């Protein structure tokens, strides 16, 4: 096998990079060993990063990634720019996969349960035992999560050989959407949506910026669509759902829909559009019943409002309606998805913004329904094998999964880490993490991507890839799968793709190219034009679904943008990442509307018991204006018991409140199913939040400009100059009146250092001035940059207790300010996101107060923080108006082995008592400068230095470069009329970061705040 694996001979230069070594342990007396390679590796130069392409395995979206390795260790994951899905970006969950790889709670050896206790056994014993069981039994069951196409084939082949069946169960399945697509268009495949082309988006609760289908790709499309362009044109999004998710917070308007009323409103809009001449095909008759007036009674949305929404949907073409998402999986979810398809079809969006393909993906998957029947069959099953799914956690308890599993003859889990389901099994086989194993993915028809190991398996864990185990088992059982390892199997499967993609070239050369690029795009499965609606073959009810219980509130259970269905919960980066909506880390909360909270005498932090007919949880209240008064919401992913040290005991699992019910006909698990009551306990719980105030208090922090004000000016987006400079204008006015203005407040980033301080190395002509521009009209607040930064810069996590004390260490604070949020009526919504990083001020207030020059300004305009000089007075942090300086209150750098392997060896790991902050990724600047220097002393090119946040941004909101070069992109973007610098007008800090104002459709107060 495997020159592929051998090429990445493992870790032979331990020590030279100092990865994981803690700082400041000057002059260690212990002997340090240098371990050279035995055989030189043409790929690896010690001290130089090696990159491998692969596929992110965190969610079914299948983003292509680049894996950065140093001395044979994975240190970071980034998006693969060549990949059509990720386009170079990634989400926070993707970035955190490094922590999945180095999870200290990974299973170290195969484990066998004896007398209720696991004991370590060898792989040989484990495989022998399993082979014996498979041989001795029949009707085996294989429960899997979503796996790649080759693995799917192998599983099916394996199961037909040993005699059994496979059930795919993903808690976040989009089965209702897929089913609705089949019913509406006869295409048994998820459609893809072209957000970029749309001018108007109606999201019926689809959280396409966080969890829905392919969030990274959709976010990029959405940002391009909703960001104002050079002609002052901007797409619009209306969010129609009971709760504002992160996607909802990015909407321009919010129609706070009663839960479950999506179908009524969508059909009623379709009714209006059909009346205006839209073609409703076989649904013409159905639509007759959905007069807006009737819809008003059902949904509570005024008929006039529905009429207007419908007309706009037709006029602002191309438009796009999406949803409902997972949070909207109620008892009529398929019908609701169908209604949205009808709306799209009537408005003529199918084939334009809604793309369907002439593919049939086999029988319709009915995830939860199949799981239920599999559970019924378990008692007869010889062996139940589980791979990549955790039903013991994610299935509501009434289904009785543990009992069903216990009835099986033998239970086997293939898993990287111990989880709730693996704990119930007899045999646990440690699987490889996706960063150390082979595989492939097909994110959409015609796109194939290879997942290759970026490093040798972490040697602390004696793991085998599930595919290899299956092949070995087959061999033990006397079968001939045609391949010895999964790598061989994969290559054989890819021979067909190679023949299609690169006919004429040899397979080896195709394979090498595929590995290098990471993705193969076939062009012969082109998207089609409009697809007509089919007459329905299933009887569906479009009515609002029935709900269990008679509690006061409808319970919305939504997938967490950090943990998904809970499988990313054992990662401290994600646990500590403040939720993009609530800004709460580590624990759970229940979202309650302020009016409801006031009525019940509740405030943020009050513990309540959320009680449904099926169960109850105790959780603190978080008062949120972005949720309807009759609704409360809980995020999935919390409340693990037995998943790992970082996940266990944090938060609650809302699934315990749900009935174990199947939505018909899609077979999905019903999530919007019950009403709940909130019973105050009278106790409080400190909230681990980073949010001080969500109100800007009229300060020039995150101003916005209305679209009208932009176009009013010069007819293009360059207008609005006077707004950005109004602070300076005021000062001028004061000066003109004879007032006292202490220093010149007119300045540009490129003017610094000022005349008086140009001395020694400080020659503006000889140095760049690094600067950044962030377009707030594009930023969605998704917080991918926060995790990317954490991974790149060895930013530690501190734990819940420290967050409660207000001691988060994060170089990027994703601020979120409410401007206009009204859960009572349809109308504009205006929530501003602002990634707050070190502004690298020209007149930095933090610098002169440092007594030891640990904070100072470099000739390149960076506000530098020299960790090893810092004595920890914290004066700089006090004096930083942006509050971006964070202090190491303790030494947080000691992490459990092997998490320290993920440290970036190019960045100093900080010890306790030291201040730190955003460095503009100075290590990347130096790396680029070093490269440019040895490449014939060429200058650094514009765009060559890409900080981690810019690299990560799915919305492409960040630009970085040398602002002193007038042709650089950052210089040009900073010239934009929307540009402003936070607080600069107030305190003349002269930041190097220029923000571009968010653009709203409604008029904003004073044009500024």
């Amino acid at each position, binding site marked *: 096998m495997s020159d592929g694996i051998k090429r990445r001979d493992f870790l032979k230069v331990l020590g030279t990079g100092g990865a994981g070594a803690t700082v400041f342990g000057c002059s260690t007396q212990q002997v340090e060993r240098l371990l050279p390679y035995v055989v030189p590796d043409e790929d690896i130069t010690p001290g130089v990063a090696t990159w491998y392409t692969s596929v992110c395995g965190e969610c079914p979206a299948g983003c292509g990634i680049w894996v950065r390795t140093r001395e044979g260790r994975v240190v970071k994951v980034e998006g693969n720019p060549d990949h059509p899905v990720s386009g170079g970006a990634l989400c926070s969950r993707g970035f955190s996969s490094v922590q999945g790889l180095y999870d200290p709670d990974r299973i170290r050896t195969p484990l066998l349960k004896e007398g209720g206790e696991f004991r370590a056994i060898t792989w040989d014993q484990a495989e022998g035992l399993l082979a014996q069981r498979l041989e001795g039994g029949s009707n085996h069951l294989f429960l899997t999560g979503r796996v790649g196409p080759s693995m799917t084939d192998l599983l099916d082949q394996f199961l037909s050989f040993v005699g059994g069946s496979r059930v795919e169960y993903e808690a976040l399945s989009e089965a209702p959407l897929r089913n609705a697509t089949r019913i509406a268009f006869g295409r048994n495949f998820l459609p893809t949506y072209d957000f970029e082309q749309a001018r108007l988006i109606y999201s019926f609760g689809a959280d396409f910026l966080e969890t829905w289908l392919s969030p990274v790709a959709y976010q990029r499309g959405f940002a391009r669509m909703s960001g104002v362009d050079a002609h002052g044109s901007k797409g619009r999004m209306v969010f129609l759902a009971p709760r504002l998710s992160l996607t909802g917070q990015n909407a321009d308007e919010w129609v706070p829909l009663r839960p479950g009323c999506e179908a009524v409103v969508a059909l009623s809009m379709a009714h209006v559009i059909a009346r205006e001449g839209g073609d409703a095909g076989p649904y013409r008759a159905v639509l007759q019943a959905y007069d807006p007036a009737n819809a008003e009674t059902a949904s509570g949305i005024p008929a006039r409002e529905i009429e207007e929404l419908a007309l706009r949907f037709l006029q602002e073409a191309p438009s796009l309606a999406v949803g409902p998402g997972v949070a909207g999986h109620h008892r009529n979810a398929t019908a609701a998805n169908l209604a949205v398809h009808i709306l799209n079809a009537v408005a003529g969006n199918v084939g334009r913004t809604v793309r369907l393909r002439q593919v049939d993906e086999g029988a319709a998957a009915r995830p939860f329904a199949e799981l239920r029947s599999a559970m019924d069959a378990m008692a007869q099953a010889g062996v139940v094998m589980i791979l990549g799914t955790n039903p013991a956690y994610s299935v509501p308890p009434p289904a009785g999964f543990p009992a069903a599993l216990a009835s099986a003859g033998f239970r086997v889990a293939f898993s990287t880490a111990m989880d709730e389901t693996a704990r119930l099994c007899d045999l646990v086989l440690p699987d490889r993490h996706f960063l150390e194993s082979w595989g492939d993915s097909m994110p959409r028809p015609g796109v194939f991507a290879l997942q290759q190991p970026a490093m040798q398996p972490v040697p602390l864990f004696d793991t085998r890839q599930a595919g290899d185990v299956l092949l070995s088992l087959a061999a033990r059982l006397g079968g001939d799968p045609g391949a010895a390892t999964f790598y061989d199997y994969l290559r054989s499967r890819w021979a067909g793709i190679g023949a299609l993609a690169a006919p004429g070239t040899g397979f080896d050369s195709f394979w090498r190219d595929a590995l290098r690029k990471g993705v193969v795009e076939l062009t012969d499965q082109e998207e089609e034009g409009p697809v007509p609606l089919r007459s329905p073959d299933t009887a569906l009810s479009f009515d609002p679904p029935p709900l269990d219980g008679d509690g006061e509130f409808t319970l919305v259970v939504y997938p967490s943008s950090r943990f998904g269905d809970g499988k990313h919960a054992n990662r401290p980066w994600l646990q500590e990442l403040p939720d993009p909506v609530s800004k709460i880390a580590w624990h759970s909360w229940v979202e309650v509307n302020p009016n409801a909270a006031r009525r019940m005498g509740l405030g943020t932090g009050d513990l309540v018991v959320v009680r449904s007919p099926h169960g109850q949880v105790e959780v603190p209240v978080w008062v949120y204006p972005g949720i309807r008064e009759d609704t409360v919401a809980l995020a999935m992913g919390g409340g693990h018991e037995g998943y790992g040290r970082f996940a266990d005991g944090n938060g609650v699992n809302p699934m315990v409140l749900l009935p174990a019910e199947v939505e018909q006909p899609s077979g999905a698990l019903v999530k919007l199913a019950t009403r709940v009551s909130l019973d105050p306990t009278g106790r409080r719980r400190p909230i681990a939040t980073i949010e*001080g105030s969500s109100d800007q208090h009229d300060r020039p922090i995150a101003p916005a400009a209305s679209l009208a004000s932009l176009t009013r000016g010069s007819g293009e987006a360059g207008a609005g100059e006077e707004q950005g400079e109004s602070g300076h204008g005021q000062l001028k006015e004061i000066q003109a009146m004879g007032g006292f203005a202490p220093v010149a407040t007119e300045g540009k980033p490129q003017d610094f250092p000022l005349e008086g301080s140009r001395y020694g190395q400080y020659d503006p002509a000889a140095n760049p001035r690094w600067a950044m521009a962030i377009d707030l009209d594009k930023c969605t607040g998704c917080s991918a940059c926060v995790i990317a930064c954490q991974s790149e810069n060895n930013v530690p996590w501190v734990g819940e207790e420290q967050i409660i004390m*207000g001691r988060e260490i994060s170089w990027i604070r994703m601020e979120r300010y409410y401007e206009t949020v009204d859960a009572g009526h349809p109308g504009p919504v205006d929530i501003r996101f602002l990634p707050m990083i070190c502004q690298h001020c020209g007149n930095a207030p933090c610098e002169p107060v440092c*007594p030891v020059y640990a904070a100072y300004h470099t000739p390149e305009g960076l506000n530098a923080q020299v960790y090893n000089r810092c004595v920890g007075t914290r004066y700089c942090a006090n004096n930083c108006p942006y*509050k971006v300086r964070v202090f190491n209150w303790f030494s947080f750098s000691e992490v459990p082995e092997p998490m320290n392997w993920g440290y970036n060896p190019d960045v100093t790991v900080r010890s*306790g008592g*030291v201040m730190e902050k955003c460095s503009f990724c100075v290590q990347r600047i130096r790396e680029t400068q070093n490269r440019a220097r040895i490449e014939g002393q060429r200058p650094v090119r514009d765009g060559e230095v890409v900080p981690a946040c810019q690299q990560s941004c799915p919305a492409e909101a960040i630009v970085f470069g040398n602002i002193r070069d007038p042709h650089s992109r950052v210089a040009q973007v900073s010239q934009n009329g929307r540009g402003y610098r936070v607080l600069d007008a*107030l305190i003349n800090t002269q930041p190097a970061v220029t923000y571009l104002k968010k653009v709203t459709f409604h008029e904003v107060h004073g044009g500024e705040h």
Partner: protein
Amino acid sequence: MATAINEKERGALTHPDVGSFGQVNRDILKMLSRPGKGWWALFLVAVGGVGLFFSAWIYQITTGVGVSGLMNPVGWGVYITTFVFWVGIAHSGTLISAILFLFRAPWRQSIYRAAEAMTVFAVMTAGLFPLIHLGRVWHGYWLIPYPNSRFLWPNFRSPLVWDVFAVTTYFTVSAVFFYLGTIPDVAAARDQATGLRKKLYQVVALGWRGTDREWHHFGKAYIFLAAFATPLVLSVHSVVSWDFAMSIVPGWHATIFAPYFVAGAIFSGVAMVITLTVPLRKIFKLEAYLTVRHFDAMAKLILLTSLIVMYAYLTEFFMAWYSGEEVERSVFWNRLFGPYWWATWIMLVCNGLVPVMLWFKRIRHSIPALFVITLFINIGMWFERFVIIVTSLSHEFEPFAWGQYRPSMTEMAIVVGSFGWFLFWFLIFTRILPPVAIAELKEVLPAPRRGARKEVTAP
């Protein structure tokens, strides 16, 4: 022959029973030889405080400065509060000994020694707090300019380096000033002591004999030292105030800070002098030397500085409103009605309202009342610094980063322990050095002259 101070004035400053130079010696030196139960009890408390102080500090050094309650917007808390508090306490000593000396205020003699000792020990206490609050105290010496192989120097633009210079200068000068003043008195003690004490005093007194030449230069040097100490005392608290005023933190960035802090320092310092001398007077039976007139004079000084401080408070609030600046207004509104309203109101009541009672002569002449009032003032002045530091930092420019700080147990242990540390030194001082200036006290008595033989008996 002309005398510097007229006789009538002198007599009033000591009790009429104190007649002769010799009696002064006897009365004062008596204090050094008799540790009563009260003294031992206090000393035990002080030693306990020192133990608490250092064990908490060592715990913090080994664990990390995170054992305090400090957090991200509030990087300074009760450590810096207590630093400023002790620096403030330190001020009255030098004020009484130097400024009142230059102004020839006649009532300073019997209290200045204790006040000066208080200054030295308060600076010794204060100086520890900037070290305590450091994240990496083992690198604290980097703030001092010293030649090193790295060619690195401190940043002289930083108010913290100013602080280092101001506080060390202040400590040095006030310690020298204090020591110089004690030399003749130690010589007096030496001349009466025996055994080990005599040996100690012989060294400390540097062989002082009270010759004409010694007195001549001593007097000059003392005046010059007083002249140096006077601007120094004003500058030190100004520099401390600039730790805040030089920043851009709303609530800190104010031009009024230097005079405001100086007045506050004198206010709190004089209050502390009263708090300390009341028990001292009781324990050592010094009623004859610390008369009601002394307390009355100090109470009037408190009253004056209280008015200045109160004026400064009001000015701050007025300017915040008048500036029209949202950030500034918000900070001061938050001060009064935000989460730290209680601290602000403690400050206003203790420093503004309570001293109003001192307008009444009856209260000024009641020692117990003064003791209680000055206790309130001490508390109020500690809270003043707490309010300035914490309310401002917790409510700065970025609303999203606002946050509340709560001191931790460790922090409070160090703060409380620092009082033990101070007391420890002060109690040792009362046992070793004459706590009332013998020589200067004699200056307020009429020198024995043959012409006055009838009134004053020879020793």
